């Protein structure tokens, strides 16, 4: 390759490499809060992607009550307000060697001093975990925690 062509090629490669590194530095956290009840047969169409998983909870009705996506840097905390004065703190800590996103998750509720749930877990990229069981407005909350990062 001629030198005049080699220089822009190297520059473009470095630029591309830098872009990929930056893209991988962010994690998108996806929190969806579903209200599940047995009072009707309604199924919110916005939840169709996770219908198989929700069906395992054996409720008759599922409605998406809140949805939030946030892009954060590794190690940075993101807080999500949830129905009923609850909130969720999520910190993506690392991208593990087996291609999983490690998260620290805390669910807080009411005025109790200790978090209701304090957990360390890892999910695969584009994967999810559910935190469920708290009562809200005659139903049960199912919180889907998902995370995505550029590989």
């Amino acid at each position, binding site marked *: 390759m001629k030198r005049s062509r080699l220089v822009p090629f190297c520059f473009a490669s470095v630029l591309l490499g830098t872009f990929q590194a930056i893209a991988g530095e962010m994690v998108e956290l996806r929190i969806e809060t579903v209200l599940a009840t047995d009072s009707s047969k309604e199924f919110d169409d916005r939840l169709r992607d996770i219908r198989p*998983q929700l069906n*395992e909870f054996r409720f008759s009705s599922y409605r998406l009550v809140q949805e939030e996506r*946030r892009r954060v840097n590794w190690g940075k*905390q993101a*807080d999500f307000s949830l129905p009923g004065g609850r909130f969720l703190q999520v910190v993506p800590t690392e991208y593990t060697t087996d291609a999983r996103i490690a998260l620290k998750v805390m669910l807080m509720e009411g005025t109790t*001093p200790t978090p209701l749930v*304090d*957990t360390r877990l890892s999910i695969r990229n584009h994967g999810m975990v559910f935190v469920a069981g708290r009562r809200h407005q005659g139903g049960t909350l199912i919180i889907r925690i998902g995370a995505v990062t550029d590989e």
Partner: protein
Amino acid sequence: MNTCPRSERVVALFHDDELDSPLRREVASHVAGCVVCTRTLAAFERVQELVAQAVSEQLEESDFSNFWEGVASRIDQQAPPSWRLWLQLWRERLRPAWMPGTPVWVATTAALLVTTVLVFHPPAKDSPLPLPDPAPTVLAANDQAQIESLSSTATVFLWNEQEGNATVIWVGDDYEGDRP
């Protein structure tokens, strides 16, 4: 007594700057309009001020002029034992030039020890293989998620849904026992 569902927990995090910006803004505007939370925040601030003041008063009266000397003398007291100094002296000054250095002695002694052990205690033919390093503790795992640690003030159940391939952390309310 007046209470506010946001008080205490969130206000403490707000006071300690432990909320990210969207929730921080939300809580700031809530506190500005809530008497209970304003009072809670003021109490946190006062406690912080008093504790910091009490410690800094005592700190101001502390004498640091000989602090380093105190540290240095403690380090010297923790200096290596005399046998190590003698060994060093032997190695650097007294050892005759024809004598081998430490690595040679160590290697020779290790070889002799291994040979002795092999001669007197030959390995059994069915000796087990060394155990692999234990895997990190995982409370629940499937293709989707692995729960590595979990603590909760409520009753918690963990399970994996095989069909939907989902991991669930079920946080029970005290008054219900029907699910999961």
